[in-house]
């Protein structure tokens, strides 16, 4: 059994200790935006038990990190946000390291703060990343470095995305109904229950070993090599069990190279673990977005066009959050059939926290806007929300104008299943009729759907995963996969796929997936890709093993291998089920024979879908996941408190591989979506996070969860492992949109900003009346 046991023996990274380790701590900026005039570390260095105190000056070799290489781990001349790393300490205990931090003196010269992305675009706005002055000695070595140079920016625009299909003006001319609204999406953060941590050490030959919770170990090996100017072959990453991921471990953050610098400076292993407050301040957020959507349809309900302009608050540095428009535009262009689309995004620098990747990757934001407009247009043309969506929903086989090819597509079935199971239409009508009547509590029901990648994602030049499968002489299998487990249950699914091929009980398979020195290459855990890509890879290896076993058995028993099968740890005759021999016995014999070769390797690469061109046209995934969620709420009009009563979800998952695991992913995603919609908000005021703790950053607790009714739609994707598609991100995506529609159904009030806190809802109700 590979499933984690609850007995407290799972050792997460926080629980690991390495002989001789020191403890690292980071000194962070107390200013939001300032020049660093002077750093005095002398007192800290003199403290007994302190082994190293480092600043940027001590690591002239450091290279910028992140998606746009705009971020030095240790800040050189200025701080751009409150979390910025100024110095780091390695000491014999955490308490000594903390005491040392307090002895470091920093002199700042404050700079004007950019806290609103709109201000960042003003012509006279201060620059967050001004270009370095000339080719100063300080930056010389960086400019020489290959492809990794910190060059600064002449403006505050971190990234832009522009996409166009058809002619939106023509689309608007055909429209009978047009809406334009601006939606405001807020900051939330991952809140992994296990805080961030890393252990770094160099061995006697100078090889670097990191215990890290990264979701992308192989990509990070390469990136660390660049940052540290090392040979990637000398970097090894071991991934201890992770205390939650959700996208947060997709990028390299300053604390990781800083810990390596400390290990280098001290010649000792260094462990660095965040406090919860640090986790709130210094780990990434979901991208906050201001999204203006203009959309139209004809009287008969046919969608005509969509124009979208979004402004993303990038924060002070660029991580994956800046690239979420890549996903957002898919929802805009292809969740429903829209002939004409125009999409523009600017991600701009501010002095706020910076955004990373987070389960759903921009799709929660895009869906929030698109699905509210769907309801508004339906109402305007006198159609019910379900019929309006069905009219515009995608069908299997469709290739959208953006170039996405939906080989399997269960959207219409998702819509009808979720609507019927929840009694959507009848409740929606009944609730609307109750709106004007007296009474404190109002019920509402809302619907929303989503489209997300479900068969890998062409984010990198390829999307592949390798598997090594070895069989021992007792009939047990070791599955060595490149795919990491981040709590999503991939180990179980992969083991199960192998078991089904080899006719073994699940207890016969062990999964090894946590050491770059051992496991074959993989792109990493993201984009709901593991089941699909690593699953296909594992099946490939298992099929090879199966072929080999049956051939050997046939030879040994003098039977046709094609007439044999593997069942329950035995080789049997397929038709009669008669046992030919036990698998263990066969394997033992094979191990003692020449050229048995009971190690299989296989690699799976996403089938050749065309890479998107530079205009973002083309297929991005081998398969797409679909879902519809219906949310029922109760609004307390005296307080503005919105209670989530029930969520009915219909998910096109391709095929159900592991029902319990699948349900667990969906339920967890629904509650994460609930938090996004109702309770969670990282409050950032003038660059300062006001609520860095669970006391005022409210995760949903057990008594608050809604009743859930989750249905699976099996569309049996032709490319998926046994027909399955990815599902990890899907369940979190529609909840906020459906909740918005439900609140409107209950009260007649449409709120276009998240989260739906009691005060925001109450205020909106007051203004309405």
């Amino acid at each position, binding site marked *: 059994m590979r499933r984690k046991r*609850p007995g*407290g023996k799972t050792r997460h990274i926080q629980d690991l200790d390495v002989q001789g380790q020191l403890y690292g701590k980071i000194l962070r900026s107390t200013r939001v935006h300032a020049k660093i005039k002077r750093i005095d570390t002398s007192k800290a260095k003199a403290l007994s038990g302190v082994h190293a105190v480092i600043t940027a000056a001590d690591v002239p070799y450091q290279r910028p990190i992140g998606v746009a290489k705009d971020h030095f781990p240790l800040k050189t001349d200025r701080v751009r946000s409150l979390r910025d790393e100024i110095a780091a300490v390695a000491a014999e205990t955490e308490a000594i390291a903390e005491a040392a931090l307090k002895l470091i003196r920093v002199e700042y010269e404050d700079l004007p703060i950019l806290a609103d992305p709109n201000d960042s675009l003003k012509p006279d706005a201060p620059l967050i990343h001004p270009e370095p002055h000339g080719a100063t000695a300080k930056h010389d070595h960086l400019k020489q470095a290959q492809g990794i140079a910190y060059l600064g920016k002449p403006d505050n625009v971190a990234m832009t995305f522009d996409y166009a299909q058809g002619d939106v003006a023509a689309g608007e001319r055909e429209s009978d109904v047009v809406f334009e609204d601006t939606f405001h999406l807020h900051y939330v953060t991952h809140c992994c*229950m296990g805080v961030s941590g890393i252990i770094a050490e160099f061995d006697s030959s100078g090889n670097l070993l990191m215990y890290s919770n990264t979701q992308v170990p192989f990509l990070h090996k390469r990136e660390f090599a660049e940052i540290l100017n090392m040979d990637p072959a000398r970097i090894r990453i071991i991934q201890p069990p992770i*205390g939650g991921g959700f996208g947060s471990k997709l990028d390299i953050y300053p604390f990781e190279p800083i810990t390596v610098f400390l290990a280098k400076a001290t010649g000792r292993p260094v462990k660095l673990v965040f406090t919860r407050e640090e986790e709130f301040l210094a780990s990434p957020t979901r991208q906050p977005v201001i999204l203006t959507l203009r959309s139209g349809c004809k009287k008969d309900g046919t969608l005509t066009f969509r124009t979208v302009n979004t402004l993303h608050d990038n924060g002070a540095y660029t991580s994956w959050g800046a690239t979420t428009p890549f996903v957002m535009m898919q929802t805009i262009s292809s969740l429903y059939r829209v002939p004409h689309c125009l999409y523009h995004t600017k991600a701009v620098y501010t002095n706020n926290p910076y955004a990373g990747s987070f389960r759903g990757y921009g799709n929660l934001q895009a869906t929030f806007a698109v699905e509210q407009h769907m309801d508004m247009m339906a109402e305007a043309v006198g159609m019910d929300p379900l019929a309006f969506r069905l009219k515009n929903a995608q069908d299997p086989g469709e290739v959208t104008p953006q170039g996405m090819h939906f080989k399997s597509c269960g959207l219409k079935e998702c819509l009808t299943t979720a609507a019927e199971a929840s009694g959507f239409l009848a409740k929606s009508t009944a609730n609307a009729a109750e709106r004007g009547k007296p009474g404190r509590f109002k019920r509402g029901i809302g619907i929303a759907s989503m489209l997300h990648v479900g068969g890998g994602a062409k984010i990198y030049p390829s999307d592949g995963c390798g598997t090594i499968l070895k069989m021992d002489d007792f009939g047990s299998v070791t599955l060595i996969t490149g795919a990491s487990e981040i709590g999503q249950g991939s180990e179980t699914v992969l083991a199960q796929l192998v078991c089904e091929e080899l006719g073994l009980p699940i207890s016969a398979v062990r999964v090894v997936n946590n050491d770059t020195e051992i496991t074959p290459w993989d792109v990493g855990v993201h984009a709901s890709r593991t089941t699909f890509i690593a699953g296909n890879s594992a099946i490939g290896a298992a099929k090879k093993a199966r072929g080999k076993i049956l051939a050997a058995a046939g030879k040994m028993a003098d039977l046709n291998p094609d007439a044999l099968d593997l069942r329950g740890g035995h080789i049997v005759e397929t038709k009669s089920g008669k046992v030919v021999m036990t698998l263990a016995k066969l394997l033992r014999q094979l191990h003692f024979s020449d050229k048995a070769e009971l190690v299989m390797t296989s690699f799976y690469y996403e089938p050749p879908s065309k890479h998107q061109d530079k205009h973002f046209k083309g297929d991005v995934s081998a398969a797409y996941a679909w879902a519809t969620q219906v949310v029922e709420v109760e609004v307390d009009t005296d307080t503005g408190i919105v209670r989530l009563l029930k969520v009915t979800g219909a998910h096109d998952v391709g095929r159900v591989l592991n029902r319990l695991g699948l349900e667990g992913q969906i339920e967890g995603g629904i509650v994460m979506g609930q938090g996004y919609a109702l309770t969670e908000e990282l409050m950032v005021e003038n660059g300062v996070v006001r609520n860095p*703790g669970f006391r005022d950053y409210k995760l949903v*607790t*057990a008594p608050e*969860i809604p009743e859930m009714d989750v249905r699976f739609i099996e569309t049996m994707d032709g490319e998926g492992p046994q027909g399955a598609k990815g599902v990890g991100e899907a369940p979190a995506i529609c909840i906020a949109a459906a909740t918005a529609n439900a609140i409107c159904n209950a009260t007649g009030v449409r709120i276009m900003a998240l989260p739906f806190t009691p005060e925001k809802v109450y205020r909106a109700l007051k203004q309405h009346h």
Partner: protein
Amino acid sequence: MSQQAINFTLNGVPTRVSVPVDMSALEMIRNVTGLTGTKYGCGEGECGACTILLDGVSLNSCLLFAVECDGRQVTTIEGLASDPLGLRIEKAFVEAGAVQCGFCTPGMVVQARQLLQDNPHPTREEIQRGIEGNLCRCTGYVKIIDAIEAIAVGKES
């Protein structure tokens, strides 16, 4: 910082340690006695990952001063390995699929034990209230509630 020698029973084993007087029981359990099943999640009693039993009553070890353990019985998740109800809960968690990343799990199991000890047949709503001090970011709580309910209604597999 003054150190204080204390004696207590840790999972049934008489234990003597010397701790700084401002140290939390969580730090003592993890760093002094080396039992890492009790997790640090927030340090302010908001997440329940550090839940232990003190004289058989559940509380957040991050809020408890280590010195307060003097003369008392401390039970951590590791100690439930020799507790019949604890073992049943652990098994039910596995069967129900209640463990995803596993970080909140030890605290959940210890709190579930408190809940089932106080009220052997809680309703679903009582279960939800019983674990309201334990945060989980992966599961959406459903499978955890299912696991505890399985014991409450005697439907363990």
